[in-house]
């Protein structure tokens, strides 16, 4: 499964620069809205599902080398956060659906927890 397939299957909005996502393969999934838990638990190259949309998620994703962030419940990061994500090469996607739904779909597609 690659990020492009995830975007298509879950009908996600691509918030950061559009590029070829088909070669980016997430290793597994992780969810939490508490950044320290993410720091402790999110594996390298995971997809991170969260409803946090403020700029520090970019710093966390950069440090952990997260493959993509999916922001749920339609939460919208501000333009500065999106700009920072583009600068750091962090992929930010969003969905109107709640986290539970997004994670359920990802699991259905074969993505697992580590």
């Amino acid at each position, binding site marked *: 499964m690659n990020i492009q397939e995830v975007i298509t299957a879950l009908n996600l909005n691509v918030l950061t620069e559009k590029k070829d996502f088909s070669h980016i393969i997430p290793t597994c999934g992780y969810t939490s809205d508490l*950044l320290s838990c993410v720091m*402790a638990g999110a594996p390298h190259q995971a997809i991170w599902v969260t409803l946090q949309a403020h700029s520090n998620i970019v*710093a966390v994703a950069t440090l952990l080398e997260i493959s993509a962030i999916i922001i749920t419940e339609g939460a919208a990061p501000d333009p*500065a956060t999106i700009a920072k994500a583009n600068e750091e090469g962090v992929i930010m996607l969003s969905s109107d659906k709640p986290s539970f739904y997004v994670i359920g779909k990802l699991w259905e597609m074969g993505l697992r927890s580590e």
Partner: protein
Amino acid sequence: MGDISRVQRRTITDQEAENITRVEELAYELKVDTVMTRDPITVTPETKMEDTLDLFRSKRISGAPVISHDELIGIISIEDLILCLQKNDLDSPVSKYMSTNLLTITGSEPVIEALKLFASSHFGRLPVLNSNKKLVGILTKGNITNGLLNALQIDYHEEEVRRYRASHLFEDINSDRSSLILRYNIKQGDFIHGGTASSAIKLALLRLGASPQIARRTGIAVYEAEMNLIIHSTNGGVIRVEIEPHQISINISDDGPGIEDIELAMRPGYSTANETVRELGFGAGMGLVNIQRCVDSMRLESVYGKGTNLKLKILLQKEDKFGEGTPGNKEK
């Protein structure tokens, strides 16, 4: 020197992921006149098709702008020549076969504009004009590919040189005990820049040749400490990282408010963060726990009302040492 090739192989994989977006960036940064062919071979409307054929063959080109009285009036391509050959009409002048319905581009435009023109038309080459509408060059898709590759190579080379130089720092500079000290001043409440210092430290370690695991552990520990300064300190604080070939010593200090009960602060899940900060996803009470998990030793000293000093050490095993070419094995 087999170690060096190991370092290089790791940096290539790092680079590969970045290059995708870098190509896109470059398409916006590179200007048409830096990648085009300058002073292209031209013909006049009166040039015979037969001479044009000879010209294409001898110069190994597949198209040429048609110039009359110093003005661009058309373009003649190999496709036009084929049509002319089919009609056995090589005696005719270029003016009979050239395309006059021209798409042109200005030299100062970014390459991305040319790519859009190529994508939306059937043209294989674009005449490049200066601001006075005079022909200064010709641009093909091949020019763009070459230009992008050159630019990428320069970029890549710069990062390689940086890493190579940095990774030999400790070997090249001789003393009884060498160390490199990095200092970062962190402002209280500066959530916008939260994570900047930890990212910079992580990059510095990678350039010095540290293993990805060591860089990641250090990055996480410093990130948590950096956020603590932003969230909890009275006047911000200082992060000081001392890098030595055998260890990384990190010192985080502030001048207040100090921790009332260190034992309680160390308990997983305990946090004094206020509601606003918690809404941002901080204050899980896991910061110090995370730091402890990532480092080999940790000493937390605090005087309530005075300030806090956190001392961390990450020890480098033989295989982790700087500049020795780390085996880029996959981290978790």
